[in-house]
């Protein structure tokens, strides 16, 4: 699964531009599913037969898109001005390496040298409107040979293993969920299951609405990446979740109250099997469940996430054992929910 995660995070897929990721996933799973199709938005659906039929239809999903930028204009001196796609703190952008346009030319974001600024100026963080990507071009005309207005711009950030079982990459949110589903699809499953790879999560959970409408499940399991703020300068009660404690179980977030009827029996079973998990102790954020659980006649929702540090930046950080615990929990869910 680690190799899959590496391949998936090396790919680029801004909300609305998920094609590269979807094509990769289609190729990976096509020989392991019984039915596969896409919709006008670009969501990818896969149905896999299990050993048994289930009474309640299950949809397992993860989103393919990532945060990034669109080129909104090109300056006369050839610089790219950006609009953001998804929530990104402008303070993590200065000094970053980027790739721009469909040709994926390298570029950088920086600000003028420290020698040319005052201490007062250095107290104010530059906002996106004043930042730009420099690809080494000297004119608008030269830039337009490589990048056009409307083209996506991505973080240029390699998959790196470091420290104690840590992985750094861009877009671990939510390519990890995608990698996990591919892993599950390639194996045998106990009960029939629908899998959905969604689009446009980062701009307001758009793809998942159609995913929910089309599959119309009774139970929704969303595999996500969520903020772990387990840092020394953050009070424990504000950390949301922590690395090393396994998959993160949602109680409530910005869009969903999660169903106890399904959560309790699964967590009980997980405890019996010694699978590590933790609750998410912050109610902020949301995931694809926000749309799926209210699609059509509604369904029950279960949220399972990996605790990720620095999501929505070029350097998402994952603790690999958390991903392993999360995978165990996802497999357990697919099995146990069939008997509910």
């Amino acid at each position, binding site marked *: 699964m680690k190799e899959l995660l590496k391949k998936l995070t090396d790919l680029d897929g801004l909300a609305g531009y998920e094609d590269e990721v979807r094509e990769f996933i289609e190729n990976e799973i096509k020989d392991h599913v019984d039915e596969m199709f896409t919709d006008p938005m670009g969501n990818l659906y896969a149905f896999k037969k299990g050993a048994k039929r289930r009474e309640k239809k299950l949809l397992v999903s993860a989103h393919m898109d990532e945060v990034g930028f669109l080129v909104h204009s090109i300056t006369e001196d050839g610089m790219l001005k950006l609009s953001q796609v998804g929530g990104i*703190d402008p303070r993590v952008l200065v000094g970053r390496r980027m790739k721009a346009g469909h040709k994926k030319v390298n570029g950088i974001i920086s600000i003028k040298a420290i020698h040319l600024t005052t201490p007062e100026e250095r107290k104010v963080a530059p906002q996106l409107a004043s930042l*730009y990507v420099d690809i080494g071009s000297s004119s608008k005309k030269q830039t337009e040979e490589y990048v056009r207005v409307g083209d996506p711009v991505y973080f240029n950030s390699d998959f790196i293993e470091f420290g104690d079982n840590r992985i750094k990459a861009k877009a671990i949110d939510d390519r990890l969920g995608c990698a996990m589903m591919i892993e599950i699809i390639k194996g045998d499953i106990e009960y029939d299951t629908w899998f959905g790879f969604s689009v446009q999560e980062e701009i307001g959970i758009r793809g998942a609405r159609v995913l929910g409408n089309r599959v119309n499940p009774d139970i929704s399991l969303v595999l996500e990446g969520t903020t772990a703020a387990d840092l020394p300068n953050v009070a424990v009660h504000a950390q949301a979740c922590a690395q090393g404690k396994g998959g993160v179980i949602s109680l409530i977030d910005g869009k969903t109250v999660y169903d106890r009827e399904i959560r309790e029996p699964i967590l009980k079973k997980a405890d019996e099997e010694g699978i590590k998990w933790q609750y998410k102790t912050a109610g902020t954020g949301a995931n694809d469940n926000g749309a799926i659980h209210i699609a059509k006649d509604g369904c029950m929702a279960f949220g399972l996430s990996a605790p990720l540090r*620095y999501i929505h930046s070029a350097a998402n950080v994952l603790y690999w054992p958390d991903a392993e615990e999360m995978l165990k929990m996802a497999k357990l869910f697919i099995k146990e929910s069939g008997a509910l």
Partner: protein
Amino acid sequence: MTFQEKLKKLVNAYGVSGDEFRVAEIAAEILKPYVDKVEIDKLGNVVGYKSCGKPNAKKLMLDAHLDQIGFLVTDITKEGFLRFMAMGVDPRMLLGSELNVIPKNGEPIYGVVCSTPPHLQKPGDNKKSVPIDQMLLDVGMPYEMVIEKIEVGDYIAFANDALDLLGDCISSKSMDDRACFMTIIHALELLGDTEIDCDLIIVGSTKEEVGGHGAMARAYIDKPDYAIAIDVGHAKTADSTPMDRTQDFGGGPIIGFGANSIPKFARRAVEVARAKEIPYQIEAIPAASGTNAWAIQIVEDGVSTLVISLPLRYMHSPVEMLTLSDVYNVGKLLCEFIKSFDGQL
């Protein structure tokens, strides 16, 4: 190795001020074929000598510093995160940046500077920059594991290898000032076996970013008559203003005029550039040049100094950017100057 490969090998190496021995080895290896003799001194300075073989020849020193900006570990928290202090870095480019801790022994240790994700911020937080003393470096290890590998006082530098941009533009963490060391290499390459009338002393110096101590020691030991400090100069960026007095990116070597880059010396450089049709730019340097020329000029009996700068965008960032045409033109100017120099200004 091609010229570009040598440049990248040099800028990808780690050597924050005071910890230059590793990068000095690489610089010495690159310099070796072009000079009679190369040494690395007790400070980590690389010095190479190329004699013209003539009696009583004057000595011309060409200096570029090998140290890069960076950080020092000041504390290890009980959760295993590092606190650090910086040398010459704008705090606004640190959140979310990738750094390497350089332990005394062993391989670089990768880490990410912690940032708070948008979901947990209060409105307005993202408009304020975070002071460096409040930042943390996440090396992804628990305390017990960290203290086996990292100590307070270890150096930290921006991570990442050089990145090719459009045309002949390249971005890297330490173009300042290793790209200028490569301008000297290019000059020596062009010079080849040409007969010259002065002895050359090539210095890859240490500790420029903290005061020019390495170059000062070399000037004391080697007693040059003349010295050219080759360093980076601010090139125009899209966010700079006329008040920033930047130079043109791609505009060729910047020849300094002022007390620290003496007019007699600078005029000679301009004459050479004009005669050989090398593009150049002029910079007024009213007092301190911010280069090793400042330190070298007043060593012992005094030295005639000149500052030649390489246009660089985004100096002191992890993505400093140059164009190779400027590197080659600086090298060409140095070569032509040497060829024309008889030891008298």
